[in-house]
């Protein structure tokens, strides 16, 4: 695979910083000529992942860093999201299901992981030397004609 163009984004683990990551990701998606719904969905996935790092890996404690690598390949856009906090326990991820007609079953949380898996083409999670890495991959078809083309 061709060498990627890449940018790294880093924030301190505070929820107030997450909109900066979101804005950056949406802006990058726009530069790549994604349509507005796709741009939103990419922003949404990265924001959900970073929120989860801050809430669950760092328990809402400031002073830790969350890093996001954005990698552009000719056929895919990859986000790698790094934290050094508590690792995810897959047993804590409940399936997302409810009965739309029963108000009391409606979820108020537990939607983030479902969103990632629904909108992304690949989702991997691994822990290496105490660092947790969530990899999100979106396949992209850059138009061969028009104001937008494949990177690199």
């Amino acid at each position, binding site marked *: 695979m061709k060498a990627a163009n890449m940018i790294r984004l880093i924030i301190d683990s505070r929820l107030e910083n997450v909109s900066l990551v979101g804005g950056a990701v949406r802006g990058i998606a726009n530069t790549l000529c994604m349509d*507005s719904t796709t741009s939103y969905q990419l922003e949404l996935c990265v924001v959900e992942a970073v929120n989860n790092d801050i809430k669950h890996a760092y328990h809402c404690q400031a002073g830790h860093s969350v890093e996001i690598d954005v990698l552009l390949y000719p056929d895919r856009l990859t986000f790698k999201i790094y934290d050094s906090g508590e690792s995810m326990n897959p047993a804590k991820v409940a399936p997302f299901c409810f009965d*739309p007609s029963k108000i009391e079953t409606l979820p108020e949380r537990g939607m983030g992981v479902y969103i990632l898996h629904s909108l992304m083409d690949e989702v991997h999670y691994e822990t290496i030397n105490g660092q947790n890495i969530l990899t999100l991959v979106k396949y992209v078809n850059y138009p061969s004609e028009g104001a937008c083309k494949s990177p690199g």
Partner: protein
Amino acid sequence: MQLKHNNVKDVLIVRPLEKRIDASTAAEFKQNMNEWIDSGNRRIVLNLSEVDFIDSSGLGAIISGFKKIGNEGNIVICVVKESVMSLFRLTRMNRVFDIYTSENEALEALSGKA
């Protein structure tokens, strides 16, 4: 967070003057909604015309208000941007909430109900 709100008869219209309802603002949004419901509001129109980003925390806060009102009233939603609408569809919340294209339609629909 700025939430514009006004009453039309017994309907409360809430319009967030924010581009984002996300994890950093969801708690405040939820608390405001709670207070309005606690003070007796049972029919609420949520106008999302200014909002171009909602994450699962923001959606959870909206759902929370909806559950709090329960069968005693309703929260309906209007003027949702197409991109934000994709979140309602993905989470099937488009089947839970009545969603209207204009504030007037939302208001009429809510006024017609018991």
